[in-house]
């Protein structure tokens, strides 16, 4: 049930921005989702359809860009993707890492009319 509250926030950001641009309708929303957020497309689409139905966002298509989990080694300063069950640096094999990507959750842009 994680997505219900996220879709409520998503919708409110979208509607605010559409109102500022004096849009009559929101046609599509480009959403950037980091893998660590655990946000599922199907669940977002389901709740969006339900929550947006009496708004100018009704029927809008959500287009997703997924950002993979990205780590930085604090010692070597290199960036590398999160591996399943391991986040050692591929160069020094160390575990002193920082999460630098994968927590994104924002609207990049929207198509309106």
């Amino acid at each position: 049930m994680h997505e219900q509250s996220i879709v409520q926030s998503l919708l409110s950001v979208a509607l605010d921005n559409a109102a500022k641009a004096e849009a009559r309708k929101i046609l599509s929303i480009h959403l950037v989702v980091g893998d660590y957020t655990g946000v599922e497309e199907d669940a977002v689409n389901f709740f969006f359809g339900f929550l947006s139905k009496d708004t100018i966002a009704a029927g809008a298509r959500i287009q997703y860009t997924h950002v993979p989990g990205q780590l930085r080694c604090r010692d070597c300063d290199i960036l590398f993707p999160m591996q399943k069950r391991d986040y050692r640096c591929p160069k020094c094999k160390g575990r002193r890492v920082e999460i630098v990507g994968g927590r994104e959750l924002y609207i990049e842009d929207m198509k309106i009319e």
Partner: protein
Amino acid sequence: MSPKIITVKENILASNEEKAGINRNLLDRHNILMINVLSSAGAGKTSLILQSIRRLKARYRIAVIEGNVASCIDADRISRENLPVIQINTGGGCHLDAPMIKKALNALDLDAIDLIFIENVGNLVCTADFDLGAHKNAVILSVPEGDDKPYKYPVMFSEADVVLINKTDVLPYFDFKLDDFPRIIEGLNPSAKVFPVSAKTGEGMDSWFSWIEETLT
């Protein structure tokens, strides 16, 4: 208007973060420390909070905000300690958010409180993404869950100020490598403190109590 694309670049959780900041300012004005206790279901949040209350209530005025998907079993357990408890039922929702905490704070007499524990909903996935306005995050991992959890839920452990490894009394029955564990956390989150504890036997709990007292002053 003919169709056009407008740039938004706006974080979906920005409004939650703004409200969390308002909560934190409110607490700071009343000189209150708020600790957000996070873990999966059954790791020992309620037990840890209860033991902390029993140890600290003679010296500090404590309140608890209880988050649960449904039921008030935990709130009932804590209210037997005779202190203010606010129950939040998320109605199926898997996390607490800043507006829910704001409502709970409004229901408390903030001039008569030094320390607030939030018992978050049992979940290691998304609870870390929602700033509540707490000053510190205490994450509990219990021995039966296994020592691989920081690999599976790195965000949660990277947001922790304290990681409590609970249920150390059952270590002989599990493959949890306690010696290696602090290094896993240190790599991901160098500033986090790691305390192995048993909320049941009380072993190791003094380090946690001391940390709370140091943070309060």
